[in-house]
């Protein structure tokens, strides 16, 4: 089976710090949801950041095999991925501006100006058609159930709403690979379930998802396969059900807890 992301012997150390990743191997299949679980400080966030090219690996190889990347350059590869953080980080602007942000990044100047002109024109009641970019923003907002929120300011949102906007912003660029770093860790259960549903739908449309999570229930609900990361190493991995039914290491028992395994 071909993979969309292939990681071999990945090592990473922060400058002047201890080694956070000590040889990670990982294969992501197109269209799957892959979960990385592990205790705090295991290196999940570091792994996501290296894979999303925040940091250059100290050693090892990462290969991206995107269908739609323009070329092999770092930027064009990065533009086929998107990441949502544990805490929503929104721009000091309206919800619309936030969701459109990623699209604007990818749009050449004439296109950006055209969108601005269209929006300005409609403000003065000119009968201008919605641009493709605007349509995508609408669609992404509809996806997370916040269609009526376009002109609301980002600061006026609840935490759950803000995270949904952050998710919509990532989905609007229609990434091939979506990194979700504990996206529901700080949310109330209803918001978390809403977001899970959005993730599921995005995945069904073909987005490959790499999910870091603490929540075993969430992993079982969403993920096809999972890996357990402990102290910068993957100690166990496999299809979710197998992994949690018959864990290879004693560690996963301890981590997951007896009651959830049964």
């Amino acid at each position: 089976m071909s993979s969309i992301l292939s990681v071999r012997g990945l090592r990473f150390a922060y400058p002047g710090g201890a080694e956070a990743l000590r040889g990670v191997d990982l294969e992501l299949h197109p269209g799957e949801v892959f979960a990385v679980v592990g205790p705090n400080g295991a290196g999940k966030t570091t792994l996501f950041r290296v894979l999303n090219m925040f940091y250059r690996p100290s050693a090892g190889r990462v290969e991206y095999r995107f269908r739609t990347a323009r070329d092999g350059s770092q930027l064009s590869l990065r533009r086929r991925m998107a990441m949502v953080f544990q805490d929503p980080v929104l721009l000091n602007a309206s919800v619309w501006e936030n969701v459109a942000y990623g699209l604007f990044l990818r749009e050449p100047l004439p296109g950006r100006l055209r969108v601005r002109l269209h929006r300005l024109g409609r403000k003065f009641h000119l009968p201008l058609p919605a641009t493709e970019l605007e349509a995508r923003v609408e669609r992404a907002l509809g996806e997370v159930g916040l269609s009526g929120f376009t002109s609301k300011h980002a600061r006026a949102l609840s935490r759950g709403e803000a995270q949904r906007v952050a998710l919509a912003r990532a989905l609007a660029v229609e990434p091939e690979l979506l990194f979700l770093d504990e996206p529901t860790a700080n949310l109330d259960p209803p918001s978390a379930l809403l977001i899970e549903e959005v993730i599921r739908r995005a995945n069904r449309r073909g987005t490959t998802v790499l999910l870091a999570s603490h929540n075993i229930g969430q992993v079982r609900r969403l993920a096809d396969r999972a890996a357990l990361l402990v102290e910068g190493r993957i100690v166990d991995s496999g299809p979710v059900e197998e992994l949690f039914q018959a864990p290879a290491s004693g560690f996963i028992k301890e981590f997951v807890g007896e009651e959830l395994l049964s």
Partner: protein
Amino acid sequence: MPSLLSAVSQAFSMIVSLDSYLLSVVGVSLRVSGMALVISVPLSALVAALLGLARFPGRNLLRTLVNTGMGVPSVIVGLVVLLLLSRSGPFGGLGLLWTPTAMVISQCVLITPLITGVMLSALVGVDRAISEAAHALGASRLQRVLTVIREARFGFLTAVIAGFGRAISEVGSVLLVGGNIVFPHGVSYTRTLTTAIVVETRKGQFETALALGIVLIVIVLSLNLLASRLQRRGSW
């Protein structure tokens, strides 16, 4: 105090009658400080972006320099510009002394550190996470910088307003390098609102001086009101 009241009424009547001396003085003030702003803002933004977002040796020294520059008295700036531009100075050949251009130069020197400093603190105040979110959504290095600058735009606006406020209300340097010149019939050449206030006070025309002061305050105040309105709307 009766003269305060009469000053207010004189200010009012000078404004509504579009007093030609007042208009020409206000015109010089706005032109000179506006020009200084036009030159200083892009320069300050560049320096602030470099100091706030890039890492290079000597950065802390430069930051200290900017912070020191924010507090330099305008007379000192004026004095240095005067020495540079005077006939025997290094740039004496340009013949810029006693012209509005000289005033623009000294105001630029005066306000660039201030604007840079305020912009810098706005940039530093932007959450690091914003820059990371930009990266995570596919921003190039330049786009990342621009995003952070855009996040700091209200701080930048404050910087611009503060810079203009300092420029239009400073006396020391424009008095020195502009020469406070007015042609017959009250046609200002290098006389600004502030230096006109000095002159009228010396003359004992306290009402006129205060009237000019009121005009100055109204200009600065309305700019600040405009700025805070823009900030409150918040969607630009």
